[in-house]
């Protein structure tokens, strides 16, 4: 089993900030908008280098989505920045009509997703955003796992023509992916090959899945870990290929169990290759205030819970 180590921890939102700057340098049509959260979204470097290509909209997210949609007319590639909660639920109809249904090339970039936003509590900890966004026809939904991958994803979506929802987070987390990785939208990343159970993880849960696989190895269980950074379009081939080998599945995500990555995988498997499955996700509840690691433990989103789920699902194998 491949061992993953890290020497540095960084927040994925900083990966977005770095990627936005690079994307801006690469393509003069890249523009950015923010609803009064420039510091939180790490947009300062872009603004410093391209002040005329940045638009401050104030605390008016609905207007920001509409302006972004309008800015595409004439060839701009707008990146909107605010928290995931205000990037999705608050502006769902604006995204639906003015961006998705209107086929606009807008990149909806959402920080502070999930429980790991921490102390601000449930008003800000959205756990339903992946579900909302993946239901929109034509919307690409991406949830990268660390700083390097978020940076690479940000640059990749600038080069892709179409609406994208890019989800990232607030806490510092290990950097374990290649700084020069090529990010391919819709292509799952094989983190570790295994034969006994498939663990499909996204976002912050990928590192937890890696830790879980190491623990499982000591128990004599060979876990295959796959990073599903693109939830839509789902890499169906990668999922089915893995399941053909392992015959049981654990999904892991920082999201409500309804509407997330697990749902997408379950739907695929029920149709093509039904196998036992366990869901490591928030069990249909809101979050609460606390430290990120405390919350992930309390809501069952850590390596320990992935190990438990893997052992449970293996018991159900025929």
């Amino acid at each position: 089993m491949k061992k993953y180590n890290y020497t540095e921890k960084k927040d994925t939102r900083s990966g977005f900030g770095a990627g936005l700057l690079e994307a801006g340098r690469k393509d003069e049509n890249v523009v950015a908008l923010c609803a009064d959260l420039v510091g939180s979204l790490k947009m300062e470097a872009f603004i410093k280098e391209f002040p005329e290509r940045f638009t401050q909209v104030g605390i008016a997210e609905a207007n920001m989505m509409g302006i972004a949609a309008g800015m595409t007319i004439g060839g701009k590639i707008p990146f909107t920045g605010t928290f995931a909660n205000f990037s999705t639920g608050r502006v769902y109809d604006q995204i639906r009509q003015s961006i998705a249904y209107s086929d606009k090339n807008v990149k909806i970039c959402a920080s502070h997703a999930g429980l790991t936003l921490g102390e601000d509590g449930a008003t800000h900890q959205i756990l339903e955003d992946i579900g909302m966004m993946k239901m929109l026809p034509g919307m690409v939904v991406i949830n990268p796992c660390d700083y390097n991958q978020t940076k690479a994803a940000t640059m990749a979506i600038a080069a892709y023509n179409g609406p994208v929802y890019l989800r990232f987070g607030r806490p510092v987390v290990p950097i374990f992916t290649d700084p020069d990785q090529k990010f391919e939208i819709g292509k799952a990343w094989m983190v570790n090959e295994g034969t006994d159970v498939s663990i499909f993880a996204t976002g912050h849960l990928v590192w937890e899945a890696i830790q879980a696989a190491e623990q499982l190895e000591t128990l004599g269980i060979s876990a295959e870990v796959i990073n599903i950074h693109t939830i839509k379009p789902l890499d169906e081939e990668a999922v089915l290929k893995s399941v053909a080998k392992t015959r049981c599945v654990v999904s892991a995500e920082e999201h409500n169990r309804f509407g997330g990555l697990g749902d997408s995988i379950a739907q695929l498997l029920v149709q093509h290759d039904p196998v036992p499955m366990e869901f490591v996700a928030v069990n249909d509840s809101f979050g609460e205030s606390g430290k990120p690691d405390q919350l992930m433990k309390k809501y069952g989103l850590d390596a320990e819970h992935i190990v438990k789920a893997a052992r449970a699902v293996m018991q159900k194998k025929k």
Partner: protein
Amino acid sequence: MQATTIQPSAQGSSAEIDLNQLKAIASQVRRDILRMVHGCQSGHPGGSLGCTDYLTALYFKVMKRQPAFDMNGKGEDLFFLSNGHVSPLFYSILARAGYFEPAELSTFRQLNSRLQGHPTTHEHLPGVRIASGSLGQGLSVAIGAARTKKLNNDDRRVFCLHGDGELQEGQIWEAAMFAAHHRVDNLIAAVDFNGQQIDGSTEQVMSLGNLRAKWEAFGWKVLESNGNDMEAILNVLDEAIKASGKGQPVMILLHTEMGYGVDFMMGSHKWHGVAPSDEQLQQALAQLPETLGDY
């Protein structure tokens, strides 16, 4: 029968077109609206008839348009319809302006049509740049397009149209604040100020108060005009264009009558979203000369 479309000149709208010709086009557009809504027994004739004169003036006289449709619209004036329910008007204008064949108007609101109940880009109908229908979103979109024109050093303008009931949506006021703050002065917005919405008059449903004072307080240059008098419309658009480029967004409050041009449809919110019967259609068409040939 005369030609069914007015071919724009290389510069788009014809500067030479006169008042009587514009009125003649408006009459045909009103016939199209009534026949489209009657044809599918669905749609919104009242507001469509009320705004006909303004859109006729914009598309056939004022806006500088490229003859062929291109989504990016670089180097031409752009129009965004925010109150998407007046789609029969928009479609008739686009067809008569040459973006597609008027014959296609007969497919309005029917299965497999590009002329959806509310406008959409999804069916690739030339002339439409954004979906609208869910109200309150078009001002933000128009502002975005106007910002891009400035970034592209494109000195053409952006026009948009809104319903007055639509101003009850909060996003409109987010956009209003933004446009003044960011000095979006290549934008000329208009409100179809007919005082009517689905459930009754705006006074009864949700009073708009002093609209002029509201937009002025938000930092806009506000103009007012009779919205059913072609000469007055041309004058106010001339004034609006002169007022643009001076650091302020421009708002035209168009005093219109819902159902204008058809006597029994005027002066009531009843015809907001109701289609005429066979007999009513004939009564209405008798009041509107066929000037360009029915589709």
